[in-house]
């Protein structure tokens, strides 16, 4: 099992400690704290040849973006990167049109929830899938066992929850007749949970303001031969380097060192949907 990270600041020190890194491509990615130009990605690839570099292109693509996207894909195809994370299906079509060799990663945030669709994408030239964060551990294991794609499971980080094209903070502050902030924290009145709301040129992102800590399930993922786990630095900046070093060591030692699990209980007990199934039918259908 390999360890992938996505950083919230440019920090090359960590590249030596992990198997791979996700870098968000400037202009074509969203939901990242830090974005990279193709030149910067090229430098990382040449400086760290053993590092698996995945490039994230996850914005919703509009017609006007297509030429820029095409140029970027052609350039990235020439680099020795491991794969491109895609949200928009245009990337799959362009890979075919341009006969690109670069591997693709199915990364449709909330949609990667079953193995049949993973296998559909595999048959269409997609080698990896980053699983959704709103499914249970049992569902994840079933996908890992049955999907032909290599699976990537996010185990630590702050979950991205929603994305809107609208400029929701600009609009809010316009109504308040105040100058707009590009980042605020909001509180849901019943659960008292907090969400971070961030606006940029692409729109508005919502993040749960709480760290998911699934370090306790890494062993289960390892034993079930999950190909990759993913840790995101956002919200964990102070401990991230140490966490990554310890996690790599834990995996290398076949996830048998319980002191790792005990140590990282300090990240909290929030395990997101790994052990909590969502519901969707709240009214009993009268005809049933």
């Amino acid at each position, binding site marked *: 099992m390999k360890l992938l990270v996505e950083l919230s600041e440019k920090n090359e020190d960590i590249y030596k400690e992990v198997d791979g890194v996700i870098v968000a491509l400037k202009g074509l990615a969203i939901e990242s704290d830090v974005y990279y130009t193709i030149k910067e990605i090229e430098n990382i690839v040449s400086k760290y040849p053993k590092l698996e570099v995945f490039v994230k292109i996850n914005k919703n*693509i509009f017609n006007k973006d297509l030429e820029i996207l095409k140029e970027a894909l052609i350039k990235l195809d020439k680099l020795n990167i491991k794969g491109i994370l895609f949200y928009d299906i245009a990337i799959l079509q362009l890979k075919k049109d341009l006969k690109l060799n670069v591997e693709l990663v199915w990364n449709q945030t909330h949609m990667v929830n079953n193995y*049949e669709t993973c296998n559909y994408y595999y048959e269409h030239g997609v080698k990896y899938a980053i699983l959704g964060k709103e499914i249970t551990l049992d569902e994840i294991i079933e996908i890992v066992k049955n999907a032909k794609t290599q699976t990537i499971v996010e185990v630590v980080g702050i979950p991205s929850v929603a994305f809107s094209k*609208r400029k929701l903070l600009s609009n809010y502050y316009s109504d308040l007749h105040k100058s707009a902030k590009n980042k605020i924290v*909001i509180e849901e009145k019943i*659960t008292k949970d907090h969400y971070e709301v961030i606006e940029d040129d692409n729109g508005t992102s919502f993040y749960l303001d709480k760290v998911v800590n699934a370090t306790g399930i890494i062993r289960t993922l390892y034993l079930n031969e999950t190909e990759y786990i993913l840790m995101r630095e956002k919200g964990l900046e102070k401990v991230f380097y140490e966490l990554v070093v310890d996690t790599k060591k834990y995996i290398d030692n076949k996830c048998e060192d319980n002191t790792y699990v005990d140590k990282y209980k300090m990240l909290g007990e929030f395990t997101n949907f790994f052990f909590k199934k*969502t519901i*969707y039918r709240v009214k009993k259908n009268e*005809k049933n």
Partner: protein
Amino acid sequence: MKKIELLAPAGDLERLKIDLLYGADAVYIGGENYGLRANAPNFTLDEIKEGCLFAHKLKKKVYLTLNIVFHNEDMKDVFSYIEKVVEAGIDAFIVSDPFIISFIKDNFKVEVHLSTQNSTSNYKSVEYFKNEGVDRVVLARELSKIEIKEIIDKTKMDIEVFIHGAMCTCYSGRCSLSNYVTNRDANRGGCAQVCRFAFKTDEEKDFTFATKDLNMAKYIKDLIEIGVSSLKIEGRMRSIYYLATVIGCYREIIDSYYSNDLTDRKLTRLQQILDRVANRATAEHYFMKEADATDQYYSGRVELSNQDYLGLIIGYDKKNKCLILRERNYFEVGDEIEIFTPEHKNYKLVVKNIYDENMNKLLVARHPEEILKIEFCEELPKYSMIRLIKKNENKSR
């Protein structure tokens, strides 16, 4: 020139019939599973069959939503379900999952429409799904007129767009606020509409981000002329009165366009009817500009109760020359009302008398669901309805 399709939502069999009788060319419905309105009444297989028979007799169509984001367990019975629905006579499936799309196209001769849940926003994505055998793409709601036109011009694809009803604040499929806030799965039919909640901030006013509803009445001409194939109304859980009114208005706009009779005056009148039936303010959102501060609410959930709908006509008392109706909202003798029919006939009158089932005179109708009678010279078709034009303001209620 192929006439544009008017596509309406039907939460149950009665709504399906009303939609089609009031002028929809096709309806979209949900089955008991796999649709994004898990908490609507939805259709059993027998009801799907009955709905399809009803529609096909009128030379109209029925589409079934199969557009959840599938989990492993959802896949277990979906294949046999699809087979049964095809046998029931469905004309198309509305799907978001590409594996399900390929399964349907590989096994059945039935249309597949790509759901807006995919937020398809460019011509290359449309091209991908066209190559996969998809017959129609329901575009993302975030697109402008220019972008929609370019997609149609470059792909020659059958394109469907939303024209009326509620809007998601976020990209469809790219929102799991409901999962996190309420544990209800947004992408599996359980959306709790968290984007209509109010959240606390450090500022003096709550943070709200609910959008106004969509109303594209004045741009139907543009949508026809850029080559859109289907115009979709949102709202499988809306009332029969809302559906009859909205469908009736858009039917008239579309027909008037094709008969070169769409005057500003007519459009203004229809727009006024649409405004009255709406329970939220409306906007055009992305069609002519980027959505901005004017397209949102800043005061949490705002839904007005509309009391214009007075009743559904359910029969005719030939002996007493009275329409028999099931009351919905309060009205009284002296009120000015309008009766409208599925055949798009309208009758304006003042209520002279109200009777109960036994022809006892009443001054007011104050009990919803009560069977009442009002004098009228002729029998009217089933599903005709009565709306209030103007209350008699001088009388106390």
